[in-house]
């Protein structure tokens, strides 16, 4: 029992290995082990390696230092601006498609009196579909022939067949449409949760002031949602900056590089050449993206901290 009386506040006294063990040092180490091993091998080490590798050229057999060469090569790659533009375009479209509609839906759903659960269950259903299944299914929907699923439906209302993924201009919006289908339910549920938490006193106060439904929504609800709206915005930017599945499975980056995203480019650098990966350039580009994302997440954490204490 004597070994155990330091559970809560480890003694700060210096001592022999024996006092260290008696002071709970050993048991602490046992609990530290999984974290140390797993983070050490699969997180800290790879992070350090990423930084080191971005200054190296390696084919896994021989490795040499190349200074900033990898970064220079990345910046010289004509695909980098294309991929950056595409990624930003994806992010923007994802915001346009996936940001306001779930909000409207959530505000409406909040007011539903009967079968509330049905609404949120319906909205959330696509989210539980495995993403790969969703992409493969939609890929078939996007069949560009007049007999394609979407083109058949368009035909009913007299719209001519669309090329969908087979057009440089339509490919990206098509990707985003599917991504929105797959993700919007999650956003709706987040908004719903936030709406539930609006303090009822605020409505009462507004009603005392004689506010109608619209004014309550606009002046009470929306301001209360400001925090969560901003958070979902940043999360969406962070998420879309790493988009991979859709372009990889839908189009492989085509047509004519119209859907090459940054992560797809990194993947191609590292794994796309049959004669061996260009790991240095891949990590160099990853680091550049990481810096951008780290800034975004810093903003995110600052804001969540601010909102949580307000």
């Amino acid at each position, binding site marked *: 029992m004597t070994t155990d009386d330091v559970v809560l506040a480890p003694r700060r006294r210096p001592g022999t290995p024996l006092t260290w063990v008696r002071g709970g040092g050993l048991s602490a180490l046992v609990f530290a082990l999984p*974290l140390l091993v797993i983070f050490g091998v699969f997180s800290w080490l790879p992070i350090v390696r990423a930084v080191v*590798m971005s200054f190296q050229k390696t084919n896994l057999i021989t490795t040499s230092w190349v200074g900033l060469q990898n970064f220079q090569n990345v910046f010289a790659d004509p695909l980098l601006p294309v991929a950056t533009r595409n990624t930003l375009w994806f992010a923007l479209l994802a915001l346009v498609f996936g940001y306001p509609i779930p909000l409207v839906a959530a505000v409406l759903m909040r007011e539903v009196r009967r079968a509330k659960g049905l609404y949120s269950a319906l909205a959330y259903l696509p989210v539980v579909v495995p993403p790969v299944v969703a992409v493969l299914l939609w890929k078939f929907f996007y069949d560009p022939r007049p007999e394609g699923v979407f083109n058949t439906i368009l035909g009913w209302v007299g719209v001519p067949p669309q090329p969908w993924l087979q057009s440089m201009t339509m490919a990206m919006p098509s990707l985003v449409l599917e991504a929105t289908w797959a993700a919007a339910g999650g956003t709706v549920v987040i908004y719903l949760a936030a709406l539930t938490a609006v303090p009822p006193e605020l409505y009462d106060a507004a009603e005392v002031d004689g506010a109608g439904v619209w004014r309550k929504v606009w002046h009470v609800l929306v301001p209360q949602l400001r925090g969560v709206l901003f958070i979902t915005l940043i999360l969406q930017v962070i998420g879309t900056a790493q988009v991979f599945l859709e372009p990889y499975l839908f189009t492989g980056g085509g047509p004519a590089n119209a859907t090459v995203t940054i992560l797809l480019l990194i*993947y191609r650098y590292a794994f796309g050449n049959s004669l061996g990966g260009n790991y240095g350039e891949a990590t160099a580009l990853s680091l550049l993206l990481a810096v951008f994302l780290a800034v975004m997440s810093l903003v995110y954490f600052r804001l969540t901290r601010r909102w949580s204490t307000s």
Partner: protein
Amino acid sequence: MTTTSPIPPTTPRPVLGTVPGEVPVIPGAEPVGAARARRARKASSSDTTDDRSAVSVSDWRRPSVRWSLGTSHWLLLVLLVVWCVGPLLLLAKFAVTPTQDILRTPMAIFPNGIAWSNLSEAWNDVQVSKYFANTIVLAAGAWFSQILVATTGGYLLSVLRPRYARVLQGAVLATLFVPAVVLLVPLYLTVLDTPVFHTSLVNSFWGVWLPAGASAFNVVLVQRFFDNLPREVFEAARVDGAGPYRLFWSIVLPMSKPILGVVSIFAVIASWKDFLWPLLVLRNPDLQPLSVRLPSIEATTDKGVLMAALAISTLIPIVLFLVFQRMFLRGAGLGGAVKG
């Protein structure tokens, strides 16, 4: 939660929140337990207004509000059915439609009969059953490794607090700011040739399970939960002669079921959705989960059979969702803080 069944404060509720202020479970965020307490207070003090929303009862009495809201609700329901369920119904239809009909007249209703054989071919020839089992095994292992690291790590950082805890915590937190992308290549090379052991984890479930454990988010989540457990209980246990292991196993873990539930849901969902990492690590088709296998057979599989395979792979998550709907939606409410 509905107005008809207000949840008493004692009912286990979502641990973290659904309030904007509670979403973050990040360093510096408001302690989870406090938020919970506040919420519980709120719920008990205003049971009748628990479900108060922008449109009040008196608003509902006004015909214009009633009519426009009622219409938009119906419209919303129709849209939700068409937009969210429509594609899945189509998938179900294609799963039993002969390939030629799928390709020529996808929207016609079974012009040439139903091809139940698609399903059996998908199950037997495409071996969806096997890949499904792999998916489950992967999720279970990833879940275990995340729970293990998060609980032991959280316990260490929150309760045991050895001298190096601060450094460790900083090192864990720092990884929150490193997006998964950066790790892709170096982590792959690490898994190819693990330090010390110098073996390759490629083509082994361990290659997916172990890296999954390195989730700083989970550690922080659990740690903050532990931070808010009442210290008096620990003290009492200590007086009763409980050591650090017993305290962990018999006191802390049982008290942490809510947070373990949250971490579990995140772990399983993330594993279910993962594509790129298992694609790189699990090259052997016998080990691949559905997410990796389906795209690789897409080009060589008959459309009808492929659709059947897709439908089968979707069915089980959907059934799980319908059964555990509440848990899923609750988890998603928290999702705001995790996606990144």
